[in-house]
């Protein structure tokens, strides 16, 4: 799954939850105004908020970044011995390459 789609999952999930929240508040005020007894939320609000929670959690799990290997020699396996000997302090730039490859 490509990276933007994960963010889309988070945004859609959050939008679902926010919409369900406003719907629930509206339902509460509707029940209060019509002087009915509040028993429970309508099923669609419940389903929408729980689906939104799952979608957003999935997106968060994907976005939070890959785990890294905790074994010490894991990241040294692909590197050659030359990597160890590469010392920047000993780099020299005063050599023939300056004359050979310089643009006149």
């Amino acid at each position, binding site marked *: 799954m490509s990276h933007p789609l994960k963010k889309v999952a988070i945004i859609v999930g959050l939008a679902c939850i926010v919409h369900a929240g406003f719907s629930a508040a509206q339902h509460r005020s509707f029940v209060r105004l019509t002087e009915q007894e509040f028993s429970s939320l309508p099923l669609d609000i419940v389903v929408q908020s729980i689906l939104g929670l799952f979608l957003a959690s999935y997106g968060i799990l994907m976005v939070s970044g890959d*785990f*890294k290997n*905790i074994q010490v020699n894991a990241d040294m396996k692909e590197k050659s011995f030359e990597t160890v000997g590469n010392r920047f302090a000993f780099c020299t730039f005063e050599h023939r390459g300056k004359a050979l490859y310089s643009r006149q």
Partner: protein
Amino acid sequence: MSSRYPGKMGKERRMPPIQYINPMMVRFNMSTAEYARTSVSALSGVVAGILGLTGLVGFAFYIFCALALFAGLVLKTGGKKSESKRFFLSRRQLLLSGQFGAIFTYVLFWTFLYGMVHVY
């Protein structure tokens, strides 16, 4: 790197190779899991508030969400126990660490959203 040591009967037994562990990467993985836990507990608190859960039902919902998050993290490491050993010292750590702070985050959002939706 396999080391040898004498067994009970004087025979040599072969030890499994010693695995050195990078503590910085352990901490990095735990902070990644912590990030997911904080966000998911805040979100599940929001949903619990919207649904209007009260009392023990809310805490049961939190336990359900924490278990679901644990399953998600385990699936993210690859599912198998040997695979999660590559990223974490133990699986139980993934379930139990930071749970105390997460439940406070949950209660904070739960009470806030419950008040916003159902009280006012």
